[in-house]
């Protein structure tokens, strides 16, 4: 069966941004998150898929049907904008009804999204979370074959954002309508993504399962963007038993061998949650254990973000709040750091 959405070799050029060689494939019931910094071309890509921008090359197919040349109103693609773009002159029920003549369907959606009580309100009087639910109801009133969401959470407070994520996961499960969700927030990407694509300068740098992309970024940019807060530049010294020995300044780290052979310039990367602090009493030595000076401790709620420096090399550790390693630890002191070799990932430095 053909995928719900298939994009092949999409390319287009605008002033200031060009997309090139975009390939995407989404199955029913899947949420693809496109993660990238501002200006990466994420919104432009969504607009191209929705049909607002003519593409210069490539093709877009929805459930096997080529829609490259179709007008937006014939594509059956729902779109949710950052600020939801509710029609300000129409009430909630009129907004939902805009794309659907079936009154029963409209009523069902009003109930489904818990906005029946707001039916006669104008958007001006709605909270961010309410607007978001109206926008979803409106999009689903047209029975879309695909839903595109362009950073819809950026206008929401934390609670409404969680609500949105719950709504979207429920909708995926209930309706199977696939979604493409654009964001620059990696936590959101992890929360929502069945598949993740990292975009930068108009290109998709890496696609895959979110854990795969997060744990094994394919390039230095992806590594940095998905939150590898430790990125130590070094050189591969030797390979043995599937492990590479990497020399980063005066540190020697072991990591699963990648494609890089001896002599290759690499970044040894680790996620902050995989950088552990050892209690002062712990024995010294062992694989990937070294001393680092604590520069700052920042309380992040469930964990403490510890900024460290090992020689010249900066790194960050997320330490659970009640970890004994934090007892009596102050900025300026030395701490023992351990990173399991399996949690160090090498990417080519270029």
């Amino acid at each position: 069966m053909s995928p719900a959405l298939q994009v092949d070799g999409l390319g287009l050029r605008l002033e200031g941004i060009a997309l090139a060689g975009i390939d995407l494939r989404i199955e029913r019931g899947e949420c693809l998150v496109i993660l990238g910094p501002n200006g990466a071309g994420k919104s432009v890509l969504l607009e191209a898929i929705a049909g607002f921008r003519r593409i210069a090359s490539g093709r877009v197919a929805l459930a096997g049907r080529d829609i490259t040349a179709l007008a937006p109103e014939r594509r059956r693609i729902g779109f949710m904008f950052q600020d939801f773009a509710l029609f300000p002159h129409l009430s909630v029920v009129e907004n939902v009804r805009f794309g659907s003549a079936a009154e029963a369907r409209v009523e069902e959606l009003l109930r489904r999204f818990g906005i029946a009580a707001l039916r006669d309100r104008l958007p001006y009087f709605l909270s961010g979370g309410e607007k978001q639910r109206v926008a979803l109801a409106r999009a689903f009133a047209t029975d879309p074959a695909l839903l595109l969401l362009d950073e819809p959470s950026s206008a929401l407070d934390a609670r409404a954002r969680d609500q949105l994520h719950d709504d979207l996961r429920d909708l995926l499960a209930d309706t199977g309508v696939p979604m493409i969700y654009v964001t620059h927030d990696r936590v959101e990407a992890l929360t929502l993504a069945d598949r993740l694509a990292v975009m930068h300068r108009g290109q998709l740098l890496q696609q895959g399962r979110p854990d795969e992309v997060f744990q094994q970024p394919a390039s230095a940019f992806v590594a940095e963007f998905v939150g590898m807060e430790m990125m130590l530049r070094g050189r591969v010294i030797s390979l043995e038993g599937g492990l590479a020995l990497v020399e980063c300044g005066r540190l020697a780290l072991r990591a699963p061998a990648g494609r890089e052979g001896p002599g290759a310039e690499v970044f040894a990367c680790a996620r902050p949650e995989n950088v552990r602090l050892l209690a002062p009493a712990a024995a010294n030595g062992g694989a990937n254990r070294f001393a680092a000076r604590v520069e700052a401790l920042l309380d992040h709620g469930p964990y403490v973000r510890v900024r460290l420096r090992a020689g010249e090399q900066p790194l960050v550790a997320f330490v659970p709040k009640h970890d004994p390693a934090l007892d009596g630890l102050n900025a300026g002191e030395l701490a023992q750091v351990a990173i399991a070799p399996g949690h160090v990932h090498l990417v080519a430095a270029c």
Partner: protein
Amino acid sequence: MSAAAEASALPRSGPVSPGRARLMFLVFWCCGGLLLVSIVAPLIALAALESPANMIRVAAMQEVRAAVALSLGAAGLTALIAAALGFPLAYVMAHGSFPGKRVVEAVIDIPLAVPHTVAGIALLAIYGRRGVFGEALESAFGLRFWGTLAGIVVAMLFVSAPFAVNAARIGFEAIDPRLEKVARTLGAGPWKVLVRVTLPLAWRSLLTGVTLTFARAISEVGAVIILAYYPMTAPIKIYELFLRFGLREAAGMALLVLVIALGLFIGLRYLATGRNLRSEAGR
């Protein structure tokens, strides 16, 4: 007392150290006030000069009524034509860029910069009996512009069309383009989007455009007088009364025209402004 009650008992906060800002505002108000007075005072003086009785007497005169009716009709027709031709242009200009957009913008504003008698002569050159348009339209439709309603309307249109285009353009540009996009994804084609989203959101600006066009058209003398001294529009009739009978006769009709024009203007403006929640959100 609860904290909330305590807070509500506080005086309303203003800026820190308001003195200097206040002085600036005072100076600015003085400047602006002079301007406002220079607009309103002559109109009040006109009203004071004339008794309503004289206005009513003048209003009963057949030729005065004909002139007022002609002015209203011609200006109304002008506003309709300006809307029919100018709003589409405004829409095109508000939606995206095209080569020569700057030139089109400048062309639209040209009538504001041309002395209106000059405009009248120019219009005569093309709509006159030997002008390109004049000759073609006369042979095709028997339409003449010298001393006719058609002549009055083309003169009014020339001087007032910029107001229709510019006001409508502001209205169209103020609409978040995402509203029109999202309407497309909801299955509405371009015409349906225009009718269901764009026009309902822009109608106040469009009405403002019509109002300003109408107001500018009804007040036009310079261009009209060259194409059509007869039949007389109200401003020309006032001028004629002034020349023939002096200030008193002229002032009676002037007050009459002022009351009618201002009444229409204020009424339309009232419709076109005012707080509007239906277009404030989503911007």
